[in-house]
């Protein structure tokens, strides 16, 4: 049924909402439990109703007519000798109609009970301006002893190189080296390799430090024009001589 047709029909026949609705209204007129209604009687009433509407030249929506045709078929099937080949049989068709009516009726009554309840905002009202309840969340912090120890181990591992303390370490400062080289170079007349200016009794680490500082020292002295340097090639021995 199209909406237009539905609208027309509502206006013309007291707003039946479809053929099933009309059938239910007729069935209830039988004033018996829907399980006990006479389907034949119901069919007669429906067909009578449709004929009456036609006589009054009311425009019936298509699905009312489809239902009328189906009910006419059902009626003849119920009345004529049964054809066992035919499935579903007329009794089952009648049962289906009765079950559908029961279900529609159940929902109609349920709806009526539902809307008749005391409805919030219509029949009963909550407090207009409740203060409200507040939940104050507090964190309960969790950590396990294992996490703590693992964390400390992790930090220790991460910072281990940083934690080495070099208790004592001999270094020759640049000032020391300049003084030492200036002093020694003046006592020599010819070219001397730079290693010859290092202290003879130096340990390995101190010797490295002394070499590095002495190298910078001779560069500084050369810059000042006090010594000259000679080296044949990279990594070849470095010679130092006092400038006249």
């Amino acid at each position, binding site marked *: 049924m199209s909406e237009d047709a539905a609208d027309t029909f509502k206006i013309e026949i007291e707003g039946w909402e479809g053929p099933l609705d009309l059938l239910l209204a007729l069935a209830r007129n039988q004033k018996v439990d829907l399980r006990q209604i006479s389907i034949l009687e119901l069919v007669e009433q429906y067909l009578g109703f449709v004929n009456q509407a036609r006589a009054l030249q009311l425009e019936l929506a298509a699905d009312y007519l489809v239902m009328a045709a189906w009910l006419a078929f059902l009626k003849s099937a119920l009345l004529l000798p049964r054809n066992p080949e035919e499935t579903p049989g007329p009794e*089952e068709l009648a049962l289906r109609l009765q079950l559908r009516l029961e279900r529609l009726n*159940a929902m109609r009554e*349920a709806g009526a009970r*539902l809307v008749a309840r005391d409805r919030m905002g219509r029949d009963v009202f*909550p407090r207009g301006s409740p203060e*409200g309840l507040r939940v104050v969340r507090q964190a309960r912090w969790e950590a396990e002893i294992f996490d703590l120890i693992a964390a400390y181990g992790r930090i220790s591992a991460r910072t281990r190189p940083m934690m080495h303390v070099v208790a004592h370490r001999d270094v020759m400062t640049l000032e020391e080296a300049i003084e030492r080289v200036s002093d020694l170079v003046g006592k020599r007349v010819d070219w001397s390799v730079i290693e010859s200016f290092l202290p003879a009794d130096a340990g390995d680490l101190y010797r490295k430090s002394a070499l590095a500082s002495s190298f910078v020292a001779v560069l500084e002295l050369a810059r000042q024009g006090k010594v000259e340097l000679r080296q044949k090639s990279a990594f070849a021995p470095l010679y130092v001589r006092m400038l006249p």
Partner: protein
Amino acid sequence: MSGVEDLARAVEAVLFAAEHPLGIEELRAHVGAQADVRAALRTLEQLYAGRGIELVRRGDQWHFQTAADLAHLLRRDREDSRKLSRAGVETLAIIAYHEPVTRAEIEAIRGVQISKGTIDVLMEAGWVRPAGRREVPGRPLTYATTSAFLSHFGLASRRDLPGIDDLRAAGLLDPVDLAVEQETSETVTQDE
């Protein structure tokens, strides 16, 4: 004042301030974990019986609301909720008692197509929501009711829907096909 009366005062204040119905555990969270909240609620029920405000139990939740017989005093400055059409009421009932339910299933029960606006009106009222698609050909949308539906109609849960247990027991919430199967099999059994 006795302990029970002190507790009743406390429960009264908490329920009064609450924005939603509260259960026993929620009440205990406010008034004390060991409190005999049920005894306090009984005291309050008696205290409020017949008054303009009533203590109401919905399922296992409690709240205060105005007495239903005073609705006429309260409605005056409120927008009258639009009256639901008959189609609307039936459709709402079918959704509530059968959810989740497709439009085709609603139409099968009502024996008529439902016009476009009927479900829209129910959704606009906040009582009905789409509830996913049914995994059958065409994947039709299903509908279900909302918590706003429950609270508007004063229901604690769908189990409180009027008569739902009887309807289910009578098979009236089963589809016709299933009911036919059962009826015919019963008939067969009777025949034997």
